[in-house]
């Protein structure tokens, strides 16, 4: 089967969306995990709150995954016949993938906040709620990244077209 260049650009968009998000989320979860191991070495009972805090920077990875899947479904690579799409539409998909991939790097900051939050929870368990909210603040921009990507996909008929 001959692939059109539009499809190839779109697939690159999906690859960047997932790839960058995976790196960023991995770093974020890693930062939080290192701090978490320190906390549970002192008090294994804190595993629950520590785990929740560590899970927070994972969401950006999921946004990356979602972006990639939306592109793949939109151009028919997943769950249907591969569509003939114009190169311009492929560029749009690439743009969407890039915005998700780059905005995922908020996960690094979120991991750092979650790590400090674990320190706070280790000293004063009642600060757990506040620590989660502090960490969630960093995710806002990843959500906006996802939002812009979705708007790109809708506007260029990759989604819902």
């Amino acid at each position, binding site marked *: 089967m001959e692939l059109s260049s539009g499809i190839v650009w779109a697939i690159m968009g999906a690859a960047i969306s997932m790839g960058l998000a995976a790196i960023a989320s991995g770093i974020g979860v890693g930062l939080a995990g290192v701090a978490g191991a320190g906390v549970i070495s002192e008090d294994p009972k804190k595993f629950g709150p520590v785990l929740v805090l560590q899970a927070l920077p994972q969401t950006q990875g*999921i946004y990356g995954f979602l972006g990639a899947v939306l592109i793949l479904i939109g151009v028919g690579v997943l769950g249907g016949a591969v569509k003939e799409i114009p190169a311009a539409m492929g560029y749009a998909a690439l743009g969407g993938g890039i915005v998700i991939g780059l905005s995922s790097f908020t996960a690094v900051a979120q991991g750092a906040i979650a790590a400090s939050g674990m320190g706070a929870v280790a000293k004063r368990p009642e600060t757990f709620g506040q620590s989660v909210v502090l960490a969630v603040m960093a995710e806002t921009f990843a959500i906006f990244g996802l939002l812009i990507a979705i708007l790109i996909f809708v506007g260029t008929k990759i989604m819902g077209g």
Partner: protein
Amino acid sequence: MLRPTRMKKLQIVALEGFRDDIVKGLQALGTVHLSDYSEAINDPHLKDLLQPHPISPNIRRIAAQNIALNRLLDVFERHDPDPREGFIKAVFAPMPPKKLETEELSGPGLLDVVDEIIGKVDAEVAQPVQDLERIEEEIAEHGKTRGLLDLVAALDIDLGDVGDWGFTSVLLGVAPKQELENLRERPEEITDNAFYLGAGETSEDRIVTAVVCLKEQTAAVLAALRRLNWERVEIQGLQGTPRQAIDSIDKRLEELDQEKRAKERMIVDIARLRKDELRKYRELLMAERQRGENHTKFARMEHVVVIEGWVPSESVAQAVQEITSITSGACVADLTEPDANDDVPVQLKNPRFFKSFELLTRLYGLPTYNGVDPTVFLAPGFLLFFSIMLTDAMYGLIALVLGMLLIRGGGKYNEMIKDGGIILSSAGIATIIIGALSGGWFGGFGLKLPVLASLQVFDPMVQVTSFLLIALTIGLVHVNVGVVINVAHKLKAGQRWKAISENLWFLFAQPGLIFIVSGNKSLGLVFIVIALILLLGGHKAMSMFQITGFMGDILSYARLMALGLCTTGIAMTVNVLASMLYMAGWLGIALAVIIFLFGHVFNFLINAMGSFVHGLRLHYVEFFTKFYQSGGTEFAPLEMKFDTIEIK
């Protein structure tokens, strides 16, 4: 509702002799939050009259008894640990907590009884514990010797011969096998053949050796041997061959093990008999300590004690009646309204359903006494946001079932689990409704059923732009509600300038914009000018940031749509992957079922957590900042609160 329980300041002046009875009476009532009156002695009018009240003399004795009880309970816990429930069982199907009935006991009477019981249990348990320690020490000692004997077991010599004799020394040691020749030759050279080495194999590359040399040459021989990595094994006071010694040690270890078990059984028997009793007294002591420690919050003058506290308005009559009856009227119980400088404790008061959502308000921080209790606003907002972000009826059903399990499981004995269950199940119901309307049944899986498909009025994956508009409109309404609450609250509190200067401008700016867009420019401009005056008057140079701040707040609600699409998108992906596998034969079908189940469980977990934290965030960051002031002190009355005992 809307504001914390109204409190009255209660000041009691009574004869010192009634002090303990009053404190006990207040503790039984459980409605008075004692405040620290000891600082009143710094008041210039009162400082000549009042003195600080000393801490109860019983406190030290209680602390010592508490340590003794904990020590005994630790011993019991070590030998007869309480059955522990796993996390899942503790949350969903816990055992009912054990309740111990007990007589009421307090004051010196209680302390004497506790001393007596500690003495008795100590006497019962001390001997077996001491014996056990001795047995364990002996076992460790034999274990060590047994380890050394294992090293030399391959030698066929009498251990009674090992050691220093009149002219000779007999030494045992282990060495690498390849050094055997050297081990024989080197010492022979330095001792002029006055040396014997016997060897046995212990493993593939190690040997065990018995060395005989002249006593005067021992040091030189040892030095030579050590250079060849020979390590000495020092065993003393044993007879017979190593094998025989091992057999007799094993026999002794068996005896010791039986003795140990017998002693442990003894301790377990005592534990079963005494544990509950000790726990009961520990809790009674805790209540006694709480009473005693509060003495430092009081003030006194000669024979009179002054106690100050906060009582919810509806409990005032009962509290005053109790104190009057305890003192037969020989006291002053003065009630006053709180003044502006008072740090009045905060007790949230909401109808039953909303009461559970106080958990989420507390997570942020209690409101101040004169502030707004946001719980009634938080509950519907949270449910709406959670359901829009989870947007799948089947996930809602899972949340509902989990919530019900929490309520009927751990919720029976734990208020916090019950509250969590109520929040989760009501969020589940809301999600079922929103999910059905948006056609989310494990993604689009359930839409194959025409009944479910007919419920759908909205397709989030297709009507993406409308979804975004709905999310932003919800945000606009929510932020407006926050602003209205602020204006109303400030007006009610008599802070008119704050009411109009803080964020009222936002309420004028919106109709202004609407009028301008709809063509009524002059009316629109009037509103806009009023909004600008309010904005500039209230915020001056920072006005610009107010506008961008509000815009950012409303845009932030776009997450409702983005996260809603995220749940739908991942659910759809799971379905696509599963359906692709489904086409690939029986193994594919099996894999498809696994992918489907795991995928949706994963999506539920990750997005339920996301919906929860982002639902809270929209309240804490975007909504609360419009009107809410946290920082209240929790109302913590002096009360009889026991984990396991019930006073008869």
